[in-house]
């Protein structure tokens, strides 16, 4: 197992390197010069050259690239090229907890709704309950998150005044305050995934309930709920975990968009502002972190497989 983990981490490093390289060259292929934009008012190209030199951006691209890689290996993500030149790691450290809070909350909401909904749907197949769950699932699936976000704001913030419309409060300011700021964006991005996972649980459960070992469990005289939870559910969970892993990663991508609707200064806002400003180090750093989360969630999924299914062992 530890050997397997080591191999996977090595693979993850290669993926991260590829992402870093791709982002590095793509950014430089995009037209636009941040320094010329900065000195637009004065129109002094000498000042722009000065700044470019200070950031090492006057070197040939391949020199910049190797310098950048060397930096990253040392854990240095560079500094923003704007304003007071804040280190990228500081910017990320500030914005990342917001995004991860939102993602984890959205994921938790999605899973806690989806699993019971999917189970009920499977157990009462073709009943009114099942059709109801299916209808809501497709509704949730077909609503874009930013639109749902706006609907939620109109209803619960502007209309009923129950929740703050925008902004973020850290967990340290109290769980209630934290939750009241995050619940709407979390529902907005979590809903489509709740729908997907619920459908997945339903079909996977129906598949498992048809198997012979469930028939065997019934022939032993076991209770219905015991068979469902102890015999069927763990088997049904195996394909669902794959989808949950993908969902976790995509929820982060969803967070990036919805953060803007709710004016939460998370990684998504940082990223979008960075791209608009051609703030190379910030964009590179943010994408590197996001890709790290992707790789990590995949690894967690694979480890979870082995925990649930004894047939899967990593040597």
């Amino acid at each position, binding site marked *: 197992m530890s050997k397997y983990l080591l191999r996977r981490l090595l693979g993850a490093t290669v993926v991260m390197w590829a992402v870093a390289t791709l982002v590095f060259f793509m950014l430089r292929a995009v037209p636009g010069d941040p320094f010329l934009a900065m000195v637009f008012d004065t129109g002094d190209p000498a000042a722009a050259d000065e700044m470019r030199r200070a950031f090492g951006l006057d070197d040939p691209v391949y020199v910049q690239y190797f310098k950048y890689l060397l930096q990253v290996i040392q854990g240095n993500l560079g500094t923003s090229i704007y304003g007071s030149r804040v280190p990228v790691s500081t910017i990320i450290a500030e914005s990342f907890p917001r995004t991860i809070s939102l993602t984890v909350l959205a994921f938790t909401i999605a899973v806690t709704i989806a699993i019971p909904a999917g189970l009920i749907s499977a157990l009462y197949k073709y009943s009114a309950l099942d059709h109801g769950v299916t209808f809501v699932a497709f509704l949730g699936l077909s609503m874009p998150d930013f639109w749902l976000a706006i609907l939620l704001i109109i209803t619960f913030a502007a209309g009923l005044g129950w929740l703050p419309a925008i902004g973020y409060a850290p967990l340290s300011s109290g769980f209630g305050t934290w939750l009241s700021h995050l619940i709407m964006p979390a529902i907005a991005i979590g809903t489509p995934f709740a729908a997907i996972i619920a459908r997945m649980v339903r079909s996977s459960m129906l598949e498992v309930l048809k198997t012979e070992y469930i*028939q*065997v469990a019934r*022939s032993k*005289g076991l209770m219905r709920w015991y068979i469902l939870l*102890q*015999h069927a559910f763990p088997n049904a969970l195996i394909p669902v975990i794959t989808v949950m892993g993908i969902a976790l990663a995509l929820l982060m991508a969803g967070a990036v968009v919805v953060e803007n609707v709710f004016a939460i200064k998370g990684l998504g806002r940082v990223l979008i502002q960075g791209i608009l400003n051609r703030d190379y180090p910030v964009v590179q750093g943010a994408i590197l972190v996001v890709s790290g989360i992707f790789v990590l969630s995949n690894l967690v999924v694979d480890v979870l497989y082995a925990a649930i299914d004894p*047939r899967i062992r990593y040597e």
Partner: protein
Amino acid sequence: MSLLSVHDLELGFETPAGHVSAVNGISYTVEPGEIVAIVGESGSGKTVAAQAVLGLIPQPPGEITGGRVEFDGEDLLGFSEQQMRTIRGRRISMVFQEPMTSLNPVLSIGRQMTEAMRLHLGLTREAAEQRAVELLGLVGIADPGRRLRQYPHHLSGGMRQRVMIAIAIACEPVLIIADEPTTALDVTIQAQILALMQDLTRRLGVALVIITHNLGVVARYADRVNVMYAGRIVEQGRADSVYRRPGHPYTIGLLNSVPRLDRPRDVPIEPIPGSPPDPARLPPGCAFAPRCLHAVERCRSEVPPSISFEGGHTARCWQTAVTRPETAP
């Protein structure tokens, strides 16, 4: 009083094409400690007839439309799901056809062996595990303590079927229903498993209903036999009697299509011509008539009654006078 007696059991399935009857009024009995075979080819209704005894037919689409299933004097068809759970695994247990898929892949062997014992016998985990070790020894599995901690994928097909048998006898039932318990196994393993089941049921005094398509199995292991064709029992009797002097042309056909070592090698196996009827469109008379070499007009229009021979041996055939051999075929 018989341990199990099935009277005129009728059941069918609702399909998009309409109601299809799978079992058309079968009756048979099982005495305590006896081995009874139900023989028939795929689609003859033998499996669903057995599952109906334990209430394992999903309803819908399945539907029991008539008959009684009396077990120990009580009609199981009138039992609630909750009452059935006190019968399943405790008084009547079942061994299934596919050992590769009848054990849950994510639960340990020990867990799957002990859960019914803990439920029905109220044993503690330790006591149940100890008994599970004994049971594994009884079914011929070496190193039972280690096996308990293993998962189904660590075991071969034959071993898994041994585990299933151990599970079946765990709560000391009085009846075991085995649905083609050896069909999925290698030929060499088949004989071992059948011998094991025979030995255990004899030793423990458990009755065994063995569902099979193999008349060879019947000859060696069963006390009595019921031959099913298209949802009806066409012949029943003591195994030796049915084997030596079969009364129904279908049984004769089955016997002739089994390769036998006691016949000259150049005698070809005679398959039964044609194929079983579509249960949705059964012919009005004897269901076997379209495939029968001795069928007369009456066979095609009227369902034959049960004709009795010596020793309780019966067959449903109009033509037994013509077809039944004087001695063994």
